């Protein structure tokens, strides 16, 4: 292997196995494990990572996406050498900084100031470097007034901010970020993203794990999609995300329960005049339903990108007959940029104390909007959900 500049990650055919049968750290468990090894029995292993291979060039940005339990965090641990792979090679050049759930490093009995020095030391910063960056860290954590107070008097949000800020000023060659956006309030999350893109702009390599696909898209050029411990696809972020969303929604559509009171027979999303659905265009949703008895209900439609929260919902009160009927909903000036979307639907009886829907909220079909590419937000800025706006720009 040629000598690589610092900041590169090379993962080749990495496998990792965990025990499937839990060996507890107790004496008789260990002894019986020893006994099995002596008798030559090997059993109860489960591969959590299989044949993982990808590379990130120095200064590159790579996202790891996948459902819970797909092996993302394990892979990060292997890369950061917290744990070791069972097979394969994993090589990194340069200092690694990991931005993980960081409250475990914070000691509640010490003051904020003492904690910054301690945790900074644990992460590998020298006392001098911490002193240099101390003011930045405190300011970033928004803890200027509280820094000499014992951390046990901090709110949990303050503790998280403290931990994150120390890690954010590590300035490593490789930055590993695992789900940090799940913590803190929205303002602080945005600040964290800004800080990460600032670090990346300075040439740090980024490996970013998140369920927040919008953040992934904003931060990373390339993505790796993990499912059940294998890489399903890797490549430019947008294309990987499209594949990922498609696969996730396919699974979701299958999960519609069929024992609901009203059964969905068929759903269609049709453009009103054109053959294609375009940003800002009109569509008609036609849903064929079968009800065992007549009644009154409130029907809902919603549109989402992937399985995330819907971009918008619309609802309508109506009565319906027994037997088969069709419900139509015209949506005008659809605010959706190019992409693949899912139509969600449900129906509730018009009664206050109703706890069970006539049919539950779930994706019923998907459709494509064709047109110009959506505008990529500036680095570090997340778009909550893709919305099409017919904008005109004038310079005078």
């Amino acid at each position, binding site marked *: 292997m040629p000598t690589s500049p610092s900041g590169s990650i*090379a993962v080749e055919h990495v496998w990792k196995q965990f025990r499937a049968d839990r060996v507890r750290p107790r004496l008789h468990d260990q002894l019986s494990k020893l006994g099995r090894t002596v008798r030559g029995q090997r059993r109860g292993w489960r591969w959590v990572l299989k*044949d993982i291979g990808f590379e990130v060039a120095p200064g590159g940005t790579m996202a790891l996406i996948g459902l819970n339990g797909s092996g993302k965090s394990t892979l990060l*641990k292997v890369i950061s*050498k917290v744990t070791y792979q*069972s*097979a394969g090679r994993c090589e990194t050049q340069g200092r690694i900084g990991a931005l993980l759930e960081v409250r475990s490093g914070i000691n509640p009995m010490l003051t904020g100031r003492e904690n910054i020095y*301690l945790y900074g030391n644990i*992460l590998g910063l020298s*006392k001098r470097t911490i002193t240099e960056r101390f003011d930045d860290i405190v300011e970033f954590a928004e803890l200027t007034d509280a820094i000499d107070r014992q951390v046990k008097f901090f709110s949990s949000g303050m503790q998280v901010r403290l931990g994150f800020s120390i890690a954010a000023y590590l300035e490593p060659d490789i930055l590993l970020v695992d789900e940090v956006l799940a913590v803190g309030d929205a303002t602080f999350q945005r600040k964290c993203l800004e800080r990460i893109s600032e670090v990346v702009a300075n040439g740090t390599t980024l490996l970013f794990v998140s369920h927040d696909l919008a953040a992934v898209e904003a931060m990373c050029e390339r993505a790796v999609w993990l499912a059940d411990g294998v890489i399903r*696809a890797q490549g430019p972020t947008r294309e990987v995300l499209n594949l990922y969303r498609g696969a996730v929604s396919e699974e979701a559509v299958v999960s519609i329960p069929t024992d609901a009171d009203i059964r969905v027979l068929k759903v269609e999303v049709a453009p009103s005049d054109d053959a294609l659905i375009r940003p800002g265009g009109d569509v008609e949703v036609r849903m064929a339903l079968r009800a065992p008895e007549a009644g009154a209900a409130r029907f809902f439609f919603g549109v989402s990108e992937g399985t995330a929260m819907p971009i918008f919902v619309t609802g309508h009160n109506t009565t319906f007959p027994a037997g088969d009927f069709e419900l139509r909903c015209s949506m005008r000036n659809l605010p959706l940029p190019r992409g693949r979307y899912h139509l969600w639907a449900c129906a509730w009886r018009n009664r206050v104390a109703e706890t069970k829907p006539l049919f539950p909220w779930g994706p019923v079909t998907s459709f494509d909007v064709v047109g110009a590419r959506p505008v990529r937000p500036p680095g570090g800025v997340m778009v909550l959900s893709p919305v099409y706006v017919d904008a005109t720009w004038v310079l005078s």
Partner: protein
Amino acid sequence: MENAFVDDSAELVVTDLSSIPDEPPPELRYRHRTYLLPSVKELWARREMMYTLAERDIRSSYKQATLGIGWALVTPIAQLVIFTLIFNHVKSFHVANVPYPLYSFAGILPWNYFSSSLSSGGNSMLSNMPLVQKTYFPRACFPLSQMLEAGVYTTISLVPLTILFVAYGFIPHIQTLWAPLFIVVELAFTAGVTLAFSAMVVHVRDLVQVMGLLTQLGLLATPVIWPFSKIPAAWQPVYAFFNPLGPVIDGIRRTMLLGQAPELGLMVLAAVGATCYLVGGYALFKRLEVSFADIT
């Protein structure tokens, strides 16, 4: 995979799932190797972290106590008083011209260092597991920082020892200059045992109880309250190898209190034993630390 870096503009690659075997080919098996010298260098590079960890523990454990760091004096003094009250009457423990409290304290100090290192250092990996499973740093920093902390407490308890010397008008003999040798042997032995236990405890929690037992029985099995000479001469070399603390305590008493030279033969055996403990303990630690993060 020949090229180290893939062009960033590379196209989407979808994995052919059928191409992935059920098991990795045996030639790819990862074998973790550790080398002694680089590991020690890495530890040395992180010495600042150990200082900070020790400082953090000292600060946080005495922050809420009224006596503060003064508590570090209370334990050895209390032990001294109790041992003196009980064993002052046992004539066979007495040594001519040496007050028993001094004699006893010279044993209590080295023993306390060992036992407090073991009990806090032995549990240190376990109690810091959340951090260990998330962040990388040389794992040995935790038990070693506990040894550092115990060292601070031991140094503090030199104060009552000095007071005792003054109170009895006893001047330590010139042979006290042998002390660095005893300290090195004691440190090596303590580090070996502490490292080994701190790693084993993670895998077998039952050892927490064994450690407690060991520190209690060890106090009786080590010449802390009784003189080393009580051991039959034939067994002394064996004892010196397996429990280097014996010759260390005996050596301190001989040199500082009696003005004699240490028994060099036994000291060499103790030093060899302590080195075995240190190398073996550290090797075991490095061997077991590989799977720390995989343990639930």
